[in-house]
């Protein structure tokens, strides 16, 4: 993607996110405090983050690929289950990815 297109994405995304924040401080509370809206807002992040985890770990363009990223993710999941701090989780995942790269190429 060209630098201009990246800048456009960065600036349009930033403006949109800012307007979403400003809307909250500005709209009447009754518009947003409906049960289905709060449910949506509670669970959309889980769906989106999980989709991103899957796509980041297993896809390369339109291909599904198994490589060191999946091994790193598995190690990260174990570390998270053991309540390791964020930085430890990232270091372990990174070390696993690097190790697989060195071993497999």
């Amino acid at each position: 993607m060209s630098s201009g297109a990246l800048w456009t994405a960065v600036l349009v995304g930033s403006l949109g996110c800012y307007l979403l924040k400003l809307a909250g401080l500005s709209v009447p509370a009754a518009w947003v405090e409906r049960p289905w809206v709060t449910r949506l807002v509670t669970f959309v992040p889980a769906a989106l983050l999980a989709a991103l985890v899957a796509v980041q770990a297993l896809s390369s363009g339109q291909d599904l690929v198994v490589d060191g990223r999946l091994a790193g993710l598995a190690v990260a999941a174990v570390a998270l289950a053991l309540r390791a701090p964020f930085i430890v989780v990232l270091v372990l995942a990174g070390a696993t990815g690097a190790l697989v790269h060195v071993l497999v190429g």
Partner: protein
Amino acid sequence: MPGPARTAVLRDAIGLGVAVGLYGVAFGAAADAAGLDPWQALAMSLLMFTGASQFALVGVLGAGGGAAAAVGSALLLGTRNTVYGVRLAPLLAPRGLLRRLGLAHWVIDETTALAVAAPDRGLARLGFLAGGATIYAVWNATTLVGALGAGALGETAQAALDAVVPAAFLALLWPRLRAGADEPAVARRVALGGAVVALALTPFVPPGVQVVAAVVAVVLAGRPREAA
């Protein structure tokens, strides 16, 4: 305003600010991996300033996705802040348009948590402002460190970074699935659904679109039963 409560609010605000610094480094590195230059990464932290949306935008770009899908993912996650704003409005009671425009930029997970947890309105304002200032400063500084640092990496280190990015998303997701979160059983089903739909669509749609499509599919699946 009692002294100890004030100190506790400030301590929490600064503690949170330092903690998000780690995510800032990870974001800077993820932005670099996605092909953004350090200035673009920094512009996102300065102007977008909402971590999950920033990660989503570079995550979709990093997966080869287009600008529209990337921006769409960022906005989907950004809707959270609208709800936070509604909760914060009576606490912050911004007087005048300029003050409201300024305060809005700092409406994020962490500042909302600080303001809502404070024992009274004065301390809520203090927590919001102290947290916002600390997090803003640390987040931007560490973004630049991550973006510049990642650019200097060799091939094996790049492989390490590639493995760090999905792990960082998993770390963001994890607290939502753990016991004690809002309805963790539902969140787990939603997360599994999102991941499965995204992977199933990957071979058939342009990169990045599957992420937005997965969210829409899960929302549609959940909406009728859960509408109240």
